[in-house]
């Protein structure tokens, strides 16, 4: 897997003593967009926090490794990590006010980010970048403060700054989930465009499978701290293997004014600690052996992985 940009190997992450994700493995190629979907609390944001590795976020990697472009970044020191954040790994948070200090101009904040990495900040270059991304009022934007902008515009300003810093991997943590449909579309299209033009790899966390199907090459489905299905987006959406993925897809609200088939119950909070399959309480196909069979993500068909294929023939 030498040409992978990002490799997550057998990752187990805790907050203090509480295990959030276990044995998660997947890899991303350069230029690939991978969406991770799942219900709240399944550990998808923790995955992003682990890759960022900022100690204030509290995610502690207990087992496994994260390899970025051939370099093990699992346990980097604070300064070494600071140097790769921004320049090799970009980040767009869910909170649209989470990227910038609300009461200082974009201009100074762009400068500070560039200078922190020893890069020159050139206003004309920034304006060119805004133009390229079709931002309105591109020549005035830098002088605004984030509170004067909409949430969507703030996200786009964060993306524009990432363009200037030039990372290879972008981490988007529910970056569009609080935006209205128009802003959502703009941000998604921008990211797709930048992938094509700059070769960005994007790890996109979302609970919106519609967004995922629009943008992603690969889709990973997480359930209670485990990756239960992973593969080519079309294969996963058209021919889901894991019983959870099937239920998740069935639960998407349709336009036909019919209530979707609900997902009964809630995922277990300590699902990452369970010895066997943690979907058992909600699964329609489970057998006695599922409760004890250890978790393992297997390649069921080429390029399509799942931790369970019990319901496949049904």
């Amino acid at each position, binding site marked *: 897997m030498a040409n992978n940009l990002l490799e997550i190997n057998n990752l187990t992450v805790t907050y203090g003593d509480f295990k959030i994700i276990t044995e998660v493995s997947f890899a991303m190629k350069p230029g690939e967009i991978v969406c991770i979907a799942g219900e709240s609390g399944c550990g998808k944001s923790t995955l992003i926090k682990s890759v*960022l590795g*900022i100690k*204030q*976020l509290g995610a502690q990697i207990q087992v496994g490794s994260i390899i970025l472009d051939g370099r093990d970044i699992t346990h980097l020191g604070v300064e070494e990590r*600071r*140097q*790769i*954040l*921004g*320049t090799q*790994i*970009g*980040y767009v*948070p869910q*909170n649209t*006010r*989470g*990227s*910038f*200090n*609300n*009461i*200082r101009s974009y201009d*100074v904040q762009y400068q*500070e*980010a560039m*200078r*922190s*990495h020893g890069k020159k900040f050139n206003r004309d270059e920034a304006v060119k970048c805004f133009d390229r991304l079709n931002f309105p009022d591109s020549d005035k934007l830098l002088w605004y*403060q984030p*509170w004067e902008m909409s949430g969507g515009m703030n996200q786009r300003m*964060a993306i524009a*700054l990432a363009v200037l*810093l030039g990372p290879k991997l972008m981490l988007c943590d529910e970056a569009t989930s609080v935006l209205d449909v128009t802003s959502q579309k703009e941000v998604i299209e921008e990211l797709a465009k930048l992938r094509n033009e700059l070769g960005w790899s994007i790890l996109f966390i979302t609970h919106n499978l519609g967004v995922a199907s629009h943008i992603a090459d690969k889709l990973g489905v997480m359930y209670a701290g485990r990756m239960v299905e992973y593969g080519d987006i079309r294969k996963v959406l058209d021919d889901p293997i894991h019983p959870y993925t099937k239920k998740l897809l069935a639960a998407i609200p349709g336009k036909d004014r019919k209530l979707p088939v609900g997902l009964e119950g809630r995922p277990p909070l300590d699902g990452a600690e369970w010895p066997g399959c943690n979907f058992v309480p909600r699964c329609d196909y489970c057998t006695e052996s599922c409760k004890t069979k250890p978790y393992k993500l297997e390649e069921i068909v080429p390029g399509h992985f799942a931790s369970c294929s019990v319901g496949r023939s049904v």
Partner: protein
Amino acid sequence: MLKYSLKRIIKLIPVLVAITLMVFTLMYLTPGDPALQKLTSQGGAVTPELLAAERHEMGLDRPFFVRYFDWVSNIVQGDFGNSYSDDQPVASKLLRALAYTGALAAASTLLSVVIALPIGVYTAIRKDSIFDNIVRIFTFTGNAMPNFLIALLLMFLFCIKIKAFPVIATASLKGMFLPTLALSIPMISRFARQTRADVMCQLSEEYVIGMHARGVKERIILFRNVLHNSAGSIITIVSLQIRVLIGGSVVTEMIFRWPGVGNLMINSITTRDYPVVQGAVLILSILQVLINLLTDLSYYVIDKRISMD
């Protein structure tokens, strides 16, 4: 901003009218006769005729509003009248006392901010460290001890035990040291606690994570962003403290015999020296209002969301 400042200064006029009226009325109603006070302080027997003549000369027998307008129109021309006790112009007395109080206020505020700010920031980023715990003990103690107790303890230590300073502060840099320290100790405690709380609050804001995620240097996050955003509430507490100091730290000035406004006021009140008290209260009120204006302007500089209307 200039327009806003002008507007605020124009709005000051009714405030000043109210203040002058209040100051004048208060002194007018205060029991005690300045003419009698003046004559007795000069020695000799006071006959009713002499008293009446003196009252007439001092203008005390004229109607209230005549005296008020007279006083105000003189003040507008910079004439605060003469002191009853020594016939010196009030303006020069006030200026001298204000200079002393101002020097003490500036020195103690500066010292407090310079010491408290780094301590506050450091204890916030190293929360619950040994240093934080030690600082906590000191700041709680500093906050809890009344000013006069600190002043007396400092005097006991520096003037009596070590004999490094004279008991009566001379109006010099050396003399300023102990009163400055006495005023600074509780202020350092207050500022450090406030800074710590504000910085900690800001550090938990999401933009801090956002900046870390862009690899912005810790130093820049802390000093250009976190401190910038905490500055509002730090300025609030500093300006409140300055307002107290400008009014004359009466007790501290008395203990150290520092010839500031506090001292002047107390002496003038006990000798019924109306012109001095009136002038002092007026000038101090104006200063308070001006500091208030500066504080509000600084809020706007920090955070443009604050409306200027």
